[in-house]
Structure formats: C-alpha cells, structure tokens
C-alpha cells in the first residue's frame, strides 16, 4: 500500500479483511478516490482481480467492490469497455500479487475504449430515468440521469480522443471540448443541488436524448428499437396472463 491509499480508512479496513487470501488476488483503488477528487458523498471504489471468482469478501461500509476474474477483465478491455480501460490507466494498485502487473503488460491494456458503447449504456440509463420520471420519483430519476449524463460525457470525450477522468473531473473536461451545458447539468445532478423540480429533470432528459443522437443516431435508434421490442413482448405477455 502506498501512503495515499494508507490514509483511506475504508481501504485499510478492506485489506485487513482479506488477510490470509492476499496471494490469490490483486486490489486496485479506482474512481474518484484514486484521483483524490472524492467528495463526502463518494464511495471508495475498489477493483479486485483474481484467477478464480472470489466469494464472501468482507466489504466495509462505503466501499463499492467490483470483482472480476483475470480472463474476464482482459476480455472487457479487448471489447473496448471504458471502466476497465480507466482502471489500467488511472487505477492505483493497493496490493498486487503479480496479476495487475501482468495485465498492464498485456496488449489489451492499450486498447482505446469504444465511444459507441457509451451510447448504448447512456440510452439504457436514459430509458430507466424516463420511466422513473413518469412514475413520479424525482430523487431516483435524478440519480439515473447522473449516470446517463456521465456515460454521454465519457462518450463525447472518447470520440474526441480525450480520456475521461473521474466523475467530478468530467465537467471541466467536457467544457473544454465545447459542451458547457452538459457540464452544468452533470454538476447539478452530481451535487444534488436544488433544482426546479420536474422541469429540470425533463430538460436533462431531452438534452440527454439530443446528445445521444448527436453522438450516434444509428446506435441510439438501434438501442431504442431493442428496448421498445422488449417492452412490447412483455406488455403482450402481461395482457395474456390476465
């Protein structure tokens, strides 16, 4: 553990909990804590990689644990997933049994993430947010819109050959490539700032859709079609079951 990670009590607590099995896995600090940009609402994100799937790890409060096997992690890198790409570029190893160094030396760790995948991820979250707006849960829809705008910001940055940093840093990054409105919206959603209720959420919803289409109209259309198709199948099932 280096000095920075040693100062995070949640990391220390997690490391104490895995004493004795440390040789089987590596632990990497990721997310805002790794960038030292965390806020009081941030969780501490830890990535655990092992050769075989891990179970029954003791996870301290406020720690969000992402577990992956070595093979799956490499596959995700190869597929162009940006979370894994983020980990290899910006993650801070807390404990390395050798697997992390191996991953960093692999060609997959150099793959530039696919911005098109962010359209699919963003659209999926947007549909969920829209449903939550419809049923009248502003708190939940604001959270889903935060994920949506985060995916969009990352997609735009990757398309512009800029590697997205941590969530609090995204705003400056998208502002720098010409999306100040997205930056402001993301910031308002992230900081839970008082908004003007449903109007703000509706504006976020519409603007997110516009940006997703702007990123890739074709991917957005395909994703929407897929979601609508699933919806129709289930409505049909529901009607038949009555």
């Amino acid at each position, binding site marked *: 553990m280096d000095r920075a990670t040693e100062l995070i009590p949640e990391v220390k607590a997690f490391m104490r909990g895995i004493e004795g099995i440390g040789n089987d896995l590596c632990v990497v600090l990721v997310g805002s804590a790794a960038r030292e940009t965390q806020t009081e609402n941030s969780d501490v994100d830890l990535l655990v990689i092992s050769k075989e799937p891990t179970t029954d790890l003791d996870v301290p409060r406020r720690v969000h644990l992402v577990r992956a096997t070595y093979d799956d992690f490499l596959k995700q890198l190869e597929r162009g997933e940006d979370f894994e790409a983020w980990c290899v570029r910006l993650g801070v190893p807390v404990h390395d049994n050798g697997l992390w160094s191996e991953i960093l030396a692999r060609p997959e760790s150099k793959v530039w993430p696919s911005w098109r995948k962010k359209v699919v*991820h963003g659209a999926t979250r947007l549909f969920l947010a829209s449903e939550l707006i419809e049923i009248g849960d502003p708190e939940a829809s604001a959270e889903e819109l935060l994920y949506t705008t985060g995916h969009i910001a990352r997609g735009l940055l990757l398309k512009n050959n800029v590697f997205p940093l941590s969530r609090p840093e995204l705003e400056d990054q998208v502002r720098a490539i010409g999306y100040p409105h997205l930056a402001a919206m993301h910031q308002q959603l992230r900081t839970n700032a008082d908004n003007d209720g449903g109007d703000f959420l509706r504006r976020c919803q519409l603007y997110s859709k516009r940006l997703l289409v702007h990123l890739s109209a074709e991917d957005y259309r395909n994703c929407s079609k897929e979601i609508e198709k699933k919806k129709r199948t289930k409505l049909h099932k529901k009607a038949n079951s009555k």
Partner: protein
Amino acid sequence: MDLEQARNHLDLARKQCDKAATDSWEPQEPASCVTNVFYAYENVIVALAECFTIKWKKNHYDKADVAAQLAKEGRITTDVSQELLRLNTLRKDVSYGEPGHDLINEDLEGLVSELESFIDESDEILSKLEDQETDEDG
C-alpha cells in the same frame, strides 16, 4: 408524522415493484429490475420513516440506517438494511456499463417476491395508522 407523504412513497414503491416484476420476466432485464427493486425498498423505508416520525436524508447509507432502526424498534419484522446495501452495490455494477457476474446470477423473481411481501407488511402498518387518524379526526 406525515401519512400523506408516507402513502405517496408507498405508492411509488408499488409502481417500481410492478416494473421490476415485468423486468424479471423473460427476456429478463436484470439491470432495470435490480434498480427498480432498490428504489422501491428505499421508498418503503421513507414511507415507514414518515409513519413513525424518523428523520431521513437523501442518502443511501442513511436510509439503510433507518431500515435497521425500524427493525430494532420492532416497527417491522424484517431488517432490510443489509439487503439495501447489497442492492446498492449490485445496481452500481451495471451503472458503469455491462452487468457484472453477481447481477447476471441474481434470482430476480425471488427478489421481487421478497419486496412484495415487505411492501404488503408496510402497507398494513400504514393503513392502520391512516384508520387511527381518520377515527381521531372523526
């Protein structure tokens, strides 16, 4: 005690539970299902907090604490605090991108069924309090 607020939150929980139930059918949508179940549980906890005048904050950990408090005080039979924390992690796995190993292997129908029971129990509590309030007003 704000029973009107409590009823609003419980109604939201029911709608989210219905959505989660549909998500649990084939072709399953684990991300949407788990997310709806999580928000539904939180809405039930807020509803119960309103019933028993317990202060709550817009924070997932705080709501899990309220859930533990409700069980400790004997207001509800099940302590869902650990389930709330587990679901919080599970839904986050997908908010980063693809569903992770744990989410894919989740028993979605079981998850929805447990939520339904919890909503029903909470509805009984709320209905009793609503009846009491009506009697007092009358």
